């Protein structure tokens, strides 16, 4: 069964304490892996797209990496404004819109 699993479900960090979020997937024919940020009461906001193993993307304190089985979202020296739920999604072969979302990691950064 095609699956996208995110861990941990929740993460609490002190400001400046770096960490990583994980997204593992068991799909065949990866077409793209996406990271989104979602603030409470709002729609997801696009962060990164990764297409092939070894690819990396960076934006401010965030860095996304991809292997054949998983992706990591590394957060370096986080600030309270980085607090949000981070969603991972995978697009894979099997149809036009075979996109599966994970359930997200809720990140809280404490001052």
């Amino acid at each position, binding site marked *: 069964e095609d699956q*996208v699993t995110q861990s941990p479900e929740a993460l609490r960090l002190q400001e400046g304490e770096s960490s990583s979020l994980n997204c593992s997937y068991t799909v065949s024919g990866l*077409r*793209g892996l*996406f990271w*989104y940020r979602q603030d409470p*009461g*709002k*729609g*997801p*906001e*696009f962060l990164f*797209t990764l297409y092939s193993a070894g690819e990396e993307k960076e934006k401010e304190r965030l860095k996304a990496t991809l292997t054949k089985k998983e992706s990591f979202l590394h957060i370096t020296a986080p600030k309270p404004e980085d607090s949000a739920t981070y*969603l991972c*999604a995978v*697009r894979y072969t099997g149809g*036009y*819109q075979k*996109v*599966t*979302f*994970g*359930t*997200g990691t809720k990140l809280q950064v404490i001052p």
Partner: protein
Amino acid sequence: NAGVTQTPKFRILKIGQSMTLQCTQDMNHNYMYWYRQDPGMGLKLIYYSVGAGITDKGEVPNGYNVSRSTTEDFPLRLELAAPSQTSVYFCASSYTADTQYFGPGTRLTVL
């Protein structure tokens, strides 16, 4: 650009009532999507469209209908509302079927 707009923001329905959730995008995107998001669950695709006049079912289409008469608009119709349709509904659009841009969501309660 306003991006993706959704109306209403909140709605309470009684069991058996019907309503239409509106979605409009001003980015000239061909692809549009409707998702529902339940607590602790990933985003689930209800319907999608690859262009005006073309729609197809997603993962959870039962109890919903869509139409796409223009590039900009993609309304979602709920017929005979049921408590199981209590959720937050997100509309999204994309240019290349990869990166999706989400609206702010509609929070629907069916009592």
